[in-house]
């Protein structure tokens, strides 16, 4: 019997979600059923260019709903953008939010909902359970296969002045419904596919080794690891293959269900700090930091890493702990490289005098709370240094 099952009671939170090709087309029906009349449609220029935003807007208007679009979201959503979106929500008298896009768009939509319902600045809601009033209904249509913001209780927003990402963790930001449509992934290029795929992989690994994991989250985490390991290389090579896209989308969903309830670890703590400072893609940061944090954690939970290796199809049989650690790290590095994510932080403009600052920010991130091995600031600094 698992020690977590004996030690404590657990709960599992997930929104209503529809998974499958063309699920996005249900947006109009859901918006109307959730009582919406004037819809704030949040998206970004990339997704708009891909055509998804316009299609969803048409779908909403077909139901007789009024649509106001907000497209001012950058890859790492900023507090200022959230405030602009909230102002527009109030100005247009909106009563429901539809987010069409990647993690950035969905996190921004969550921030807009929080501020629209509670007032004040988005920065005031940083931390756990800091959102008092429930927000307007939120419908999420993810267009990237990794972030899982569409099912999670997390919203990550960039604090522009401090150049750091803040985490808002609350039941209030779990969307009302997620319309998960693998078809939307077809417009992603190979590198973005790799980054978001690796993000899903990190979600699954961190959730599985989290000190808050549970039998239900374990199931989803291992399945996600298996799916990514099996299909990411192929999907990166053949972005137009809907079958492969569906597998990656499913992996992302399962990883999301796992980490939303088991939380994450220091990879994300460090990625948040790094992404906020350098404005790098979230999945890319995760992919660059993952092997080093695994190395740091391995000895604390060797059995769990062995099961991860198993799910990845990486055979550790007969190997001792040190050999096993090497093997699994090699496996992850190979996958990363095969998908096109190469080199380290230095190549992406990070300098050695940035590291202390990055570590100081990262150590404050709540994701550290569930890392199997509680890190110190110096630990994190050292890990950044390794990732250079």
């Amino acid at each position: 019997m698992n020690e977590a099952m004996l030690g404590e009671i657990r709960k599992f939170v997930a929104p209503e979600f529809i998974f499958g090709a063309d699920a996005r087309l249900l947006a109009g029906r859901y918006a109307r059923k959730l009582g919406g009349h004037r819809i704030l449609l949040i998206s970004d220029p990339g997704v708009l260019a891909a055509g998804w935003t316009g299609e969803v807007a048409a779908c909403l208007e077909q139901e007789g709903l009024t649509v106001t679009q907000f497209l001012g979201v950058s890859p790492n959503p900023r507090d200022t953008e959230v405030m602009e979106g909230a102002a527009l929500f109030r100005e247009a008298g909106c009563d429901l939010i539809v987010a069409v896009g990647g993690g950035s768009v969905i996190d921004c939509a969550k921030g807009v909902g929080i501020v629209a319902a509670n007032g004040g600045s988005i920065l005031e809601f940083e931390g756990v359970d800091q959102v008092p009033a429930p927000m307007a209904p939120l419908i999420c249509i993810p267009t990237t296969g990794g972030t899982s913001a569409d099912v999670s209780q997390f919203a990550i927003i960039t604090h522009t002045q401090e150049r750091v990402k803040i985490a808002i963790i609350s039941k209030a930001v779990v969307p009302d419904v997620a319309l998960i449509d693998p078809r939307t992934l077809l417009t992603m290029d190979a590198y973005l596919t790799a980054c978001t795929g690796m993000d899903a992989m990190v979600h699954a690994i961190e959730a599985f080794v989290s000190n808050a994991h549970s039998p239900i989250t374990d199931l989803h985490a291992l399945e996600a690891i298996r799916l990514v390991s099996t299909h990411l290389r192929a999907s990166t090579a053949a972005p137009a293959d809907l079958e492969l896209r569906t597998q990656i989308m499913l992996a992302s969903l399962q990883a999301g269900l796992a980490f939303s309830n088991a939380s994450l670890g220091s990879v994300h703590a460090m990625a948040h700090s790094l992404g906020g400072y350098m404005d790098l893609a979230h999945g890319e940061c995760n992919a660059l930091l993952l092997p080093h944090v695994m190395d740091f954690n391995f000895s604390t939970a060797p059995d769990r890493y062995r099961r991860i290796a198993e799910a990845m199809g990486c055979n550790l049989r007969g190997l001792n702990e040190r050999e096993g650690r090497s093997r699994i790290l090699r496996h992850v590095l190979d996958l990363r490289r095969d998908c096109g994510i190469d080199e380290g932080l230095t190549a992406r403009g990070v300098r050695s005098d940035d590291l202390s600052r990055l570590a100081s920010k990262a150590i404050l991130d709540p994701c550290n709370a569930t890392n199997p091995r509680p890190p110190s600031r110096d630990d994190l600094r050292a890990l950044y240094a390794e990732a250079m």
Partner: protein
Amino acid sequence: MNEPQDWSQLRDSIIGLGTDSSRRTYYPELLARVAQLEETRESLRRSEENLLTLFNGLNDAIFIHDWEGHVLEANDAMLAMYEVTRETFRDHTIQDYSEGPLTLAHIETMRHQLDRDGSLVFEWQARRPTRPNAPLDVEVAVRRVCWYGQNALVSVVRDISGRKRLEAMLNQSQRLDSLGQLAGGVAHDTNNMLGVIIGYADLLLERTEAMPNLRRDLEQIRKAALHSADLNRQLLAFARQQAIQPTLLDLNAKVEDTQKMLRRLISEQHTLAWHPAPDLWTVWADPSQVEQILTNLVVNARDALGTGGSITVETANTTLGAAARSMPDAEPGDYVVLRVRDTGRGIPADVLPHIFEPFFTTKAQGRGTGLGLATVYGIVRQNGGFIQVDTAPGQGTTFAIHLPRLPGGSPAASAGPAPDVAGGHESVLLVEDEEILLETAARILEDAGYRVTSTANPLEALRWVEAGLAPALLATDVVMPGLDGPGLWERIRTLRPDIKVLFLSGYPASNLGLAAPRLDSLGFLQKPFTRNELLQSVRDALEV
């Protein structure tokens, strides 16, 4: 910060076991808000109901209308006043509800005044769409209102036709009063002259028994003078200055007495009905005046009838409360009503305000003096009563004479026939400031055997008595310069306590300024008088 932190508490909240992370329902809050909304709606409904009751409970008509004149809402009083229904009142515009045209200039002025003062009030003539030829006098108060988001006006319309009518009645009453004063003054002055004419005619008649031709001419002069004196009496009646002898009077008995005479006034083709009310209260009035009223009203009714129709005379008791305030001459109290109703052509609205004016007549020249109704008016007012006229073209006319009730008492017996006129040999001190009348009266008295000392100056008369003159009778005018009749009598009486007195006056006895009981023991003669009347009064006064 080199040591790993203790993250356990944060971990617990992240995995959703913190106190604030449990799922909560907003259902009870929703129910409470819905209940609150319901309550608000209910109180709003009640408030609206109350306001609607007030809106419809007002006597003034209220229109809500836009600047183009379309009626948006109206209250019950509006429907009643304009004789429209809830279903039809919007079919008409404000223009349709106005007698006069509402010009653009008029509307601009209204807009200007509303901007300046916030409201405006003006008199207007309202028009009832179903009765376009019967305008209604109204007062309109206009204010701006925002009616369900629309710029509109609220016009409160008050029916002031009653007030207008009352004003007109008051004007009429005041006009009749001043006419009365004028007529009274003229009649009074001519009376003295008539007295002279009649007096000298009488004197001459005494001496012309042997000259029939002359006598006939004199009789004509005397007749004409008497006729003029009669006209004067009517004018004085209108002016409420007729000498009257009011008694306790049973109106039913009096009307009964006059039936025969009244029937003679009307022709065969008219019927005269008489409906006395049982247990009629008594009044305090001069019986001959009542007869005068009846005669005049019946004649008036007869003339209104044309061929055929009926005249009804009836009596009734009535008590007036606060309603009396709506009639200018009336006061609350008990009244005996004498009603004369005809089925004739009625009095046109433009004629009605003038019917009580002297010499106002619609009859053909020569048919009436125009003094009939004026006399009735004066008599009724003199007796403390008032007249209500109810008439409409084609609907006949009813004159309702209201005389104040006199509690208790029984009608006095009517006076007996006048005794024969006799002269005498007593000494009479005659004082009259109108010299020509003084001379006439002196001649009549001297011819009848009296020893007469006469003067136009009351002070001279007083000096004579002081000097030793001791007349048996003082016959004196009432109104004189220097010392009036009653004053002269008071002064002389202190010197000659046994002296008798006879007052000669153009005014009623009640105008003498003497208390009623004393008046009974004093002689009084109304001017103008005939020779016989003077001699009779002198004889009566001497024999008191």
